[in-house]
């Protein structure tokens, strides 16, 4: 290894090439971002922290969708359904036993978080056999049907969900006897939730990254690129499609369980087709088939409403309230559509692709062209 000093990008083995942080700049960037994220709670206001915490949770969900859609190539419009399963499992487990809605009073965070993930994964495995038989757009429409059926069930099952327009409290985040959603002597609630979500995001992102650079991840990519060819070279299609759905649903369940913890309350109407489309947008705008892309996309989509809210001060023809000709709410909705179209046409690799281009420009600077 001695002779390789000063040649950091010379790899002498496959393991080195596929290592977790395989280049020096990657290590530097990751370390820097980690430090930045950890000092953030002491720099910015609580409402921004809450927004970022929601963004981190969305990122966990987006990583899940990216595993099944970006890596394994199985288009799923049913992510909202799995998010809902996770959200209701967690809320029901941790809710008070004597409330208006079903509750079991198990408030310990690791328990309900794992349970939410596992129940969602179970539903993923149940759906997968249909997915194994179907391809491409047939699958997209079936998963879309799942969202509608789920919406119906959650709307009617009022003893679990509280019913449309009423809703129920979200899961209670209690870790080692400390309620994380209440201020205490050291931290405010927003700071605690931010740190909790950030730590969970790092854990799940590292797990996902390790999964996709393993044998399983390569099998997923083979199924995505050409499933028939993959099965010819010995990839068990059924097994890997079921696995992709299970892992993806697990992530969705975890994200769903946490998604409403910051707000504290949710309603069965939240889990509609729009939510699925938002997650698809996160994956595509961030960059399909990359973990860091999914995180970037999730943060971008979560922060987008906040950014558009600020626009009326800069562009006076946009009305800040709901009465004008062209309001921020319309702008926000249009932006989803426009961003999806523009990214897919101009930069199919998403934000991750832009980052790669910027990186390559500076890597060869001043001789870049």
């Amino acid at each position: 290894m001695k002779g390789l000093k000063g040649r950091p990008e010379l790899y002498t083995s496959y393991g080195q090439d596929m290592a977790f942080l395989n280049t020096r700049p990657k290590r530097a960037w990751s370390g820097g971002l980690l430090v930045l994220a950890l000092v953030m709670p002491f720099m910015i206001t609580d409402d921004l922290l809450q927004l970022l915490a929601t963004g981190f949770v969305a990122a966990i969900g987006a990583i899940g969708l990216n595993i099944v859609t970006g890596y394994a190539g199985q288009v799923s419009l049913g992510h909202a359904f799995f998010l809902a399963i996770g959200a209701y499992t967690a809320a029901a487990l941790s809710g008070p036993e004597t409330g208006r809605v079903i509750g079991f009073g198990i408030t310990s965070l690791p328990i309900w978080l794992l349970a939410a993930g596992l129940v969602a994964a179970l539903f993923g495995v149940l759906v997968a056999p249909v997915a194994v038989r179907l391809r491409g757009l047939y699958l997209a429409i079936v998963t879309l049907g799942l969202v509608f059926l789920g919406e119906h069930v959650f709307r009617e099952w009022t003893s679990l969900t509280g019913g449309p327009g009423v809703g129920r409290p979200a899961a209670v985040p209690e870790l080692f006897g400390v309620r994380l959603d209440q201020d205490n002597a050291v931290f405010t609630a927003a700071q605690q939730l931010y740190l909790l979500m950030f730590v969970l995001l790092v854990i799940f992102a590292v797990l996902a990254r390790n999964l996709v650079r393993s044998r399983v991840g390569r099998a997923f990519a083979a199924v995505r690129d050409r499933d028939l060819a993959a099965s010819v070279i010995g990839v068990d299609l059924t097994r890997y499609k079921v696995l992709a759905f299970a892992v993806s649903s697990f992530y969705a369940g975890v994200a769903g369980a946490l998604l409403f913890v910051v707000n504290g309350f949710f309603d069965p109407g939240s889990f509609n087709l729009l939510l699925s489309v938002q997650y698809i947008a996160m994956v595509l705008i961030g960059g399909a088939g990359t973990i860091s892309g999914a995180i970037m996309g999730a943060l971008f989509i979560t922060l987008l409403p906040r950014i558009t809210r600020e626009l009326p001060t800069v562009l006076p023809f946009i009305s800040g309230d709901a009465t004008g000709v062209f309001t921020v709410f319309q702008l926000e909705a249009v932006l989803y559509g426009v961003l999806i179209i523009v990214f897919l046409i101009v930069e199919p690799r998403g934000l991750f692709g832009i980052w790669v281009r910027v990186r390559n420009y500076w890597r060869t600077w001043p001789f870049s062209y």
Partner: protein
Amino acid sequence: MDEFLQSLIRGLGTGSIYSLLALGFVIIYKSTQVISFAQPAFMLAGAVLVSYLSPAVSFLGAVVVAAVVIAVLALGVERTVLRPMVGKPVFVVAIITIGVDVVVRVVTNAFIGLDVRQVGDPWGLSTVSFLGAEVQERYLVMIATTAVVTALLFVFFRYSRIGLAMRAVAYDQEVALAQGVSVGSVFALSWALAGGLAALAGVFVATGAGVDQQLWIVALKALPAIIIGGLESLGGAVVGGLTVGVVESLFGTYQNDFAPWLGPNFGLVAPYALMLLVLLVRPYGLFGKKEVERL
């Protein structure tokens, strides 16, 4: 019996709306192998356009103008947004159409506002006696119009030169190109046809109750219809659409008596459940072709 007949006619009426939409989906799918999720937006835009035009140029005139305008709009979308994506994975193109749907729908919603707009149709909710049952006139009109439109489409595909070109493209794009068929114009034309059909469907949905911002949800019912019928079958689209309409309507009428545990309004999601059932038995729908694959 009267209740059954009423329910059946209502189902066939709404089913013919789904058939029109499903025909649009299938026409686009056959020529471009893409499911266009932009159909709901075109449907909504068509209905809104008619609601603005009908006081000026009568209801019938408004419908014709709206169908043509939406067809041109759809053609424009195909030219500007979809054309650069030819050859890209179908999934990516399908997602782009979701983007188109969102944009068109938000713009259209600005023209609807918070009120319900009336399309000014001559039928309203008035009923007529049909085989001894009181049924709404508009359902009979929908069934008749859809029958005529479907017949015209079949004649068009069967006997016209352009229809032949479209069938050739659906069969094999490269071979069609080699025979001198302009594949690009076929793509554009199929989007225009689908847009026009969606506009017509939108007007029918809006008869009676009017147009509001939630109207687009109806168009998604055409998705189970095309899956049930099979993605590449025009006949399947019609059969699928009618099936979905009738199932929805019969569930709406009778489900409270025989299966109350499914919850009220299960009829609205019954098509999706039916779709799952059909797919478990026939993964390519009732009339779809099984894909032959090779490496």
